[in-house]
């Protein structure tokens, strides 16, 4: 049963991964990535990582990818037009990736895996066990990531802030009220 | 609001408690309405009575002896702001007496779809022949059906006259 679930999820994940790379509209790439994430979350569940599963969907699929979607919808459907600047860039990168994978393969050849004992899945990967880890041993890195998030939020707000210099000097040319009744009056405090 | 205008007109920022209170007042209002009886008229089973002056479907009236009231004077057509009444008069003869006066309406048509039910025809009629009755369910599916001819507009004959005519037909 679990094997079937794993293979279905893995197939979906790989298909999604191919989709991310090959779709020409960014919105389809995003949706493919969501598919990958959902498939991976199923695999996390297989691996007994319940909390990571929930976080994967809530944070990754539910928030981060929505942000991507938001940006794409906001910017409008942009299509990728140009080819790569290098000739044969696609082939070159494929070769590069294959080499990378081959390297990993050879490196991992001699590694001896440890046969796991009977893991107590009633505790392993539950919210409690994660919490114990996060709030005792790894409290420091946990807090650091919190600070990182804060910094990222501030940075994003700074980047997308309203350009104050433009908006405070009165409406720019072309933003003035059209010739009409309202246009004849002195500007008023609103 | 009516009493302390001065206070209300100044836009004070109400406290959170007042805000919550206002929200609860609103909820209370709607809830109390929920448990009061509905105000709906259950048309078509149930119809509210129309007022005596209601301006609905037109009727051409008759006298009690069965004669038509209309004398074909065309005042209604002249008074109509829409021009949706067509009257063509003809002379009464002794053999064919339709109305008590000299003339009667040979053709009397109203285009009900154009009619705006202003009641001017009723006001104009010197013999109270055309009246606007209380019926209002006039919807129909084609334009032609809205040209009400004299047959459609005329009141049915009084029962005794009808009975007399029926007996005449039989013989």
């Amino acid at each position, binding site marked *: 049963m679990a094997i079937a679930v794993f293979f279905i999820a893995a197939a979906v994940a790989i298909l999604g991964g191919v989709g991310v790379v090959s779709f020409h509209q960014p919105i389809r790439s995003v949706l493919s990535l969501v598919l990958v994430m959902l498939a991976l979350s199923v695999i996390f569940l297989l691996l007994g990582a319940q909390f990571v599963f929930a976080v994967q969907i809530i944070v990754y699929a539910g928030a981060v990818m929505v942000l991507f979607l938001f940006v794409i919808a906001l910017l409008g459907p942009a299509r990728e037009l140009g080819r790569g600047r290098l000739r044969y860039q696609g082939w070159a990168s494929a070769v590069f990736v294959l080499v990378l994978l081959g390297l990993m393969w050879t490196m991992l050849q001699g590694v001896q895996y440890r046969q796991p004992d009977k893991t107590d899945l009633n505790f392993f990967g539950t919210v409690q066990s994660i919490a114990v880890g996060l709030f005792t041993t790894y409290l420091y890195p946990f807090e650091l990531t919190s600070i990182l998030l804060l910094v990222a939020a501030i940075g994003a707000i700074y980047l997308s802030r309203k350009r104050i210099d433009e908006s405070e000097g009165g409406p720019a040319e072309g933003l003035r009220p059209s010739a009409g009744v309202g246009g004849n009056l002195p500007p008023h405090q609103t | 609001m009516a009493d302390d205008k001065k206070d209300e007109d100044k836009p004070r920022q109400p406290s959170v408690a007042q805000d919550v209170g206002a929200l609860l007042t609103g909820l209370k209002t709607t809830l109390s309405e929920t448990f009061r009886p509905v105000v709906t*008229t259950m048309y078509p089973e149930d119809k509210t009575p129309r007022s005596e002056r209601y301006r609905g479907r037109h009727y051409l009236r008759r006298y009690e002896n069965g004669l038509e009231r209309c004398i074909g004077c065309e005042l209604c057509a002249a008074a109509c702001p829409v021009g949706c009444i067509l009257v063509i008069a003809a002379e009464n003869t002794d053999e064919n007496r339709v109305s008590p006066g000299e003339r009667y309406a040979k053709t009397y048509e109203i285009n009900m*779809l*154009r009619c705006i039910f202003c009641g001017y025809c009723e006001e104009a009629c010197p013999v109270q022949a055309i009246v606007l009755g209380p019926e209002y*369910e*006039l919807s129909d599916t084609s334009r032609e059906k809205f040209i009400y001819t004299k047959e459609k507009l005329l009141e049915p004959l009084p029962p005794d006259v009808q009975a007399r005519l029926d007996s005449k037909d039989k013989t």
Partner: protein
Amino acid sequence: MGVEALAESLGQNILTTTLGKLIGWGRGNSVWPLQFGLACCAIEMIHTATASVDIARFGSEAMRASPRQADMMIVSGRVSQKMAPILRTIYDQMPEPKWVISMGACASTGGVFNNYALLQGVDKIVPVDVYVPGCPPRPEDLLNALMILQERIKAQGITPRQ
């Protein structure tokens, strides 16, 4: 849409007539209006939707603002020459099957305003199923028209207006 084509290919048999009855029943009892409120009649049309008359009893209170979800257009009021093309556009945006009620004298014929500015009858640009005379008609009159339309829809079955 597919249902009509299917019905035609199957011809008249028990299945299609039963299905036709069911579809007619569904369509007839769930006529969602698109309010094309233009003038005086629009106010009486709103009255029809409110508590004193309550069109909701007939399942027609889902007055969707988008023509895509509407089944019936209630043209209520005077259609000016300037408005006529827009009315037609919105009619075209409604998905089939669709019906039109022409409410009031002005929408049906122009009424008292027999002049240059008004379209003398909305049936010149869209097919009208039920006319409601009156200026404006009573809310009950509109309900009556809705009931006439419902009967018509139920009788039409699968393939309305061929």
